């Protein structure tokens, strides 16, 4: 039986089912319940956007509201993981990494290696990413490349409700620290999600649209932007293949390379700032391992190298959209220059 629920509901369901299964799992973060110590109701918020609503009712004091002390409570999640708990901790907006990154990248991420393989650090950090809510420069970034850079962390960037549930359950069952990036504009989107728990292995990209002319690798919400672009390009007879890596650490290089081998062209769509992001990382990987597959230069569709602006006009200009993806694809498939070089192959 197909059942449609939202991205947000799928995350809530994954948390609920896993907490039901394993009593060592605790959920921590700012206002994950909301209402602690006040004169009103508990579970007043259920997370700042309501993603964890209802979990306090089910699990009581395993849903732990924290003070606004990201260093202390994210560090505490890592300390607790060395002492028998399996914390899922929420860093409300990824932009707040600036106040607690040491506990993530110098402590938790490195325990296993620094301690000679004798530590297991089962922590999931859930965090919101992405522009589009007019939330300006400190609540809108896509900082996942900075986490991807750190050995010891795993980085998950789901784009659909189905993937969100399966990847989050995998993240919770995983014995390594996982950072789970939730694009806030994806929360309301609906998709088919099985009711029973299931996992999606890390490091397995999914081909969300098959095509022969160009490969588009897109991350998180950009998968949907790429799909819009591909639908319009199809009307002009351009057939795009879209790869969603789903996890960027580990990265499924093979699926990307196989697709590029087939299409000969690569467009990368990444909402992260353009320097040292996933687009540059994957472009470099393809240049090293699949250079002979390419019939045209790699194109990257990213925001400009600016902070995320506030004004709607500016933010709309900032975020990569279907028009920009279409322009990039058209340049690769229609330019006489690249056709000429292709014909000499």
């Amino acid at each position, binding site marked *: 039986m197909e059942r449609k629920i939202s991205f947000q509901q799928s995350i809530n369901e994954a948390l609920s089912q896993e907490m039901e299964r394993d009593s060592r799992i605790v959920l921590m973060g700012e206002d994950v319940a909301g209402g602690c110590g006040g004169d009103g109701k508990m579970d007043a918020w259920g997370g700042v956007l309501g993603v964890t609503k209802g979990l306090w009712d089910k699990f009581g004091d395993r849903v732990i509201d924290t003070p606004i*002390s990201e*260093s202390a409570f994210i*560090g*505490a999640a*890592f300390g*607790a993981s*060395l002492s028998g708990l399996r914390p899922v901790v929420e860093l409300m907006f990824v932009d707040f990494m600036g106040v607690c990154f040491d*506990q993530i990248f110098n402590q938790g991420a490195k325990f296993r290696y*620094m301690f000679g393989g004798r530590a297991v650090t089962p922590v999931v950090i859930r965090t919101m990413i992405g522009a589009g809510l007019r939330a300006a420069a400190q609540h809108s970034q896509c900082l996942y490349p900075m986490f991807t850079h750190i050995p010891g962390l795993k980085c998950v960037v789901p784009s659909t409700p189905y993937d969100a549930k399966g990847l989050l359950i995998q993240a919770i069952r995983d014995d390594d620290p996982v950072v789970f990036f939730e694009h806030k504009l994806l929360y309301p989107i609906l998709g088919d999600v099985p009711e029973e728990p299931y996992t999606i292995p890390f490091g397995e990209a999914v081909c969300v649209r098959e095509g022969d002319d160009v490969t588009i690798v897109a991350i998180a919400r950009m998968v949907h932007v790429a799909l819009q672009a591909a639908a319009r390009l199809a009307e002009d007879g351009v057939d795009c293949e879209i790869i969603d890596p789903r996890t960027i650490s580990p990265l499924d290089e093979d699926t990307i390379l196989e697709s590029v081998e087939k299409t000969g062209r690569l467009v990368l769509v990444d909402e992260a700032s353009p320097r040292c992001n996933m687009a540059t990382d994957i472009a470099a990987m393809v240049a090293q391992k699949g250079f002979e597959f390419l019939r045209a230069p790699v194109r990257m569709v990213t925001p400009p190298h600016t902070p995320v602006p506030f004004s709607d006009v500016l933010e709309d200009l900032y975020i990569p959209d279907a028009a920009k993806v279409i322009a990039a694809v058209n340049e690769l498939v229609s330019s006489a220059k690249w056709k000429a070089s292709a014909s000499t192959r």
Partner: protein
Amino acid sequence: MIESAVENATSIQLDTGTLLEAYRTMRTIREFEERLHVEFATGEIPGFVHLYAGEEAIATGVCMHLREGDRIASTHRGHGHCIAKGVDLNGMAAEIYGKRSGTCGGKGGSMHIADLDKGMMGANGIVGGGPPLVCGAGLAAKKLGTGNVAVAFVGDGGSNQGTTLESLNLAAIWKLPCIFVIENNGYAEATSCRYSVSVGDIADRAAGFNMPGLKLDGHDFLTVYEAAGKAIRRAREGGGPTLIECKVARYFGHYEGDTQAYRGPDEVKKVRETRDCIARLAAEIMRADAGAAAELERIDGQVLARVDEAIAHARSAAKPTARDLLTDVYVAY
């Protein structure tokens, strides 16, 4: 150097066995550190080494109350805490020499020695890195009902880090079974606490977090032992966290190779001559049992042999191989 008055009202009477156990631990730390000081100068020990000599009474006085399930988080000056928490000396020495048989397979070094089986969550290269971890260990103990406690060792430098202050608040509001032991050795690297700390006594900061704050002479084992025992018992019984400041002096530099030009002339010499924690404990033991001299001498000999063995093991142990570079990053990837 710390001159302020400290609370030294020890009323505690310990049996000779306990005193001798403390003496052995403190002597082991001292011997180990003094040996590393010598060996480091030969160039055989790689990297950065920060020695704990002078501060032995603190690690020992605290850790004697802890069991294996209890957690500690240490600092960059972590050897003493490791030894006091029961980490194997051969493994420690091998780790410090970067050898494969080291506690962390040679991947951590002096600044990251850890042994989770012994409850030791690691020395730490980041000042103030440990207190949040200790809150987590305390939270786990509380949620899992283990009755364990967790202790953060923090320097006077670390006392100024936001992580420490945030952790004091977190431990207080959640009433965690955590003890924050501030080892105030007077210097954050080369900067005096008289310059860098806003209060004369870091213990006074405890009041701002609604927890007891104690100010102790960190050179006096009995004082530390008694106060730590009370705080740990209180934490175990659900009474919540305590902050304990121990005023102390380190005998060596911030790191090995530090010329210590920032210290006053004869500063360390004076402490060694008048306030040395091991000499004081030895005198205490002799006062209690005039016949203990031979026993102390026997322990000294055993400790020397044990440290000799550890250093010899470390020197002769094999280094990691190229294969070890890529292992232990993830459980699975």
